[in-house]
């Protein structure tokens, strides 16, 4: 269920600054933490990128004017009938398959009953005992190898609306404003088993999950826009012990970093409680981003009572093998498999392969460039991960919007190989290609960047530089070899980088040793 929904009236007052571990996490905390280990599971919600909502034809739009995408179905008016969106089911099956789940041959929807104003029906249509997918796993590369994270379940449900609180915070507000545009947008809930053993592993799992979901093209997974949300469960136990500790639920994790930091904080807090010989109490805690601490949200004295029952307005789903096979045939090569292939097929280091395959679009770009180039794939990788990534970051450009076609990058690499331009000049050429979308040949011609191939012309410039820098030239003649670097630099400057540095070096040495 969406994170905001599980709020009871028993909001505790610890937000004002309750007991917690020392923020500095000093030597004592580190020492005690080393005797314990965390047991972490994540509950992830992603908004599926269907055009319409899960049970009605309203557009699933982000950032639209308030209440401009609602209808009697998603407003929960009496007498309406929800009708299930086929695409959302297919996205769910696709995700379940990609996460190695068993796809249910028989599935149904249930009502989860609770009161919250962002849920106008007073129940959420979700899936309880017969989710779309169960018993899957994801392999995540973590520090020191591979961790198999089991997926407990994958199910479909509807999103809730958005509340704007009068005073900015829920506790201080005398009223709230509700926008139901998001109500009924399809959500996929993906619940992992508690198989993660550090905050870093949780981060790695979340990254891999996002990567897979983006490869599948079922969600844009933007945490800052709320299309990917994550809650975490964490308990702490003595290292090596099989007895599980008391799980704490963490909410308000609004970025990948927040997930990692909140878990690290919570691990320290619980380890300190256990080290003092005390017990951790079962509760839901809220990550306070500004103070970088978790604060008590509510205690869980009793289990939640949502009185689930089968949704009478929706008939069950039968997912036969033909349907599963049809969806399976649309699965792309997934990041884990592609990562292995990049190492095998292109001889790339694991690091390069991991970065290139994190996004499908980047991996596609790389492969198209390698195919057009035909040369060393590592050279392509260096340019994609180096200059291209640098310019994309600097300008905030998505790989899909990059104006340098993979074939243009390949053409430029060939120009380096055949000596038309130097590797140094290529950076200038590439910047221009990135900014304008022009072909490398055009950039080189327009800017006069062709490498000076005429040895006579180069020799003339070398002589000029020697004449202008007699002191330095004498130093080189006297055996101070390092001084030659300065002269090479001067030649490069005069030629605006169009000289081949090796040739310049050779010409300088010829002249200065014979003098």
């Amino acid at each position, binding site marked *: 269920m969406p994170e905001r929904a599980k709020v009871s009236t028993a909001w505790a007052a610890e937000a004002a600054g309750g007991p917690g571990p020392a923020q500095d996490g000093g030597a004592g905390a580190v020492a005690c933490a080393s005797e314990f280990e965390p047991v972490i599971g994540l509950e992830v919600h992603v908004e599926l990128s269907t055009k319409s909502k899960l049970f009605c034809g309203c557009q699933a739009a982000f950032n639209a004017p308030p209440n401009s995408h609602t209808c009697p179905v998603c407003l929960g008016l009496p007498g309406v009938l929800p009708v299930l969106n*086929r695409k959302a089911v297919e996205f769910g099956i696709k995700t379940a398959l990609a996460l190695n789940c068993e796809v249910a041959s*028989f599935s*149904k929807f249930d009502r989860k009953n609770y009161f919250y104003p962002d849920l106008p029906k007073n129940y959420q249509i979700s899936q309880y005992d017969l989710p779309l997918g169960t018993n899957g796993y994801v392999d995540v590369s973590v520090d020191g190898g591979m961790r198999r994270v089991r997926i407990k379940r994958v199910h479909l449900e509807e999103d809730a609306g958005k509340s704007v609180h009068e005073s900015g915070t829920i506790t201080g507000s005398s*009223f709230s404003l509700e926008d139901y545009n998001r109500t009924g947008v399809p959500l996929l809930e993906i619940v992992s088993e508690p198989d993660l053993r550090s905050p870093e592993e949780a981060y790695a799992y979340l990254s891999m999950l996002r990567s897979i979901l983006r490869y599948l093209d079922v969600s844009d997974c933007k945490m800052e826009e709320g299309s990917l949300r994550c809650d975490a469960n964490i308990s702490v136990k003595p290292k090596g012990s099989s007895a599980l500790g008391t799980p704490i639920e963490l909410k308000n994790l609004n970025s990948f970093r927040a997930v990692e930091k909140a878990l690290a904080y919570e691990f320290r807090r619980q380890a300190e409680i256990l080290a003092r010989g005390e017990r951790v109490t079962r509760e839901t805690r809220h990550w306070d981003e500004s103070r970088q601490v978790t604060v008590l949200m509510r205690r869980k004295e009793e289990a939640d009572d949502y009185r689930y029952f089968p949704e009478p307005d929706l008939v069950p789903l039968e997912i036969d093998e033909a349907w599963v096979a049809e969806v399976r045939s649309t699965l792309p090569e997934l990041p884990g498999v592609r990562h292995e292939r990049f190492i095998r097929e292109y001889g790339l280091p694991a690091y390069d392969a991991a970065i290139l395959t994190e996004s499908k679009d980047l991996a596609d770009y790389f492969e198209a460039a390698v195919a057009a180039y035909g040369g060393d794939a590592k050279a392509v990788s260096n340019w994609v991960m180096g200059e291209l990534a640098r310019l994309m970051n600097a300008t905030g450009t998505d790989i899909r919007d990059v104006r340098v076609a993979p074939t243009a990058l390949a053409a430029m690499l060939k120009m380096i190989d055949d000596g038309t331009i130097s590797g140094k000049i290529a950076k200038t050429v590439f910047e221009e290609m990135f900014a304008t979308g022009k072909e490398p040949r055009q950039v080189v011609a327009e800017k006069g960047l062709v490498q000076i191939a005429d040895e006579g012309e180069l020799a003339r410039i070398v002589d000029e530089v020697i004449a202008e820098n007699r002191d330095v030239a004498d130093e080189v003649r006297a055996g101070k070899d390092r001084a030659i670097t300065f002269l090479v630099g001067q030649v490069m400057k005069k030629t605006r980088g169009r000289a081949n540095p090796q040739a310049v070096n050779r010409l300088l040495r010829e002249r200065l040793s014979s003098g």
Partner: protein
Amino acid sequence: MKITIADVDHVAMLARLRFDEDQKAGMAEQLSRIVEYVEKLNELDTGDVSPMAHAVPLRNVLRDDEVRPSLDPEEALRNAPDREGDFFRVPRILESE
């Protein structure tokens, strides 16, 4: 099955309803009678009957992912007890303690 006052309190809390003590006693009485009536079903042998997910023998009623017109915000808000701009305005969500 006998419904106790504690059961009434629990269900009332879930339904966000408030009763005074007299009403609770009456409610426990009435709910007990209803549950006893439904318990008659236990007299049937359902050993051979598989659990039913839905009363209607239909499966896979699905629609294509097509956008249809939504309500005009003015129309959507027409029955709202309170509004502010094009938002539904609702009372305080959490009681501060």
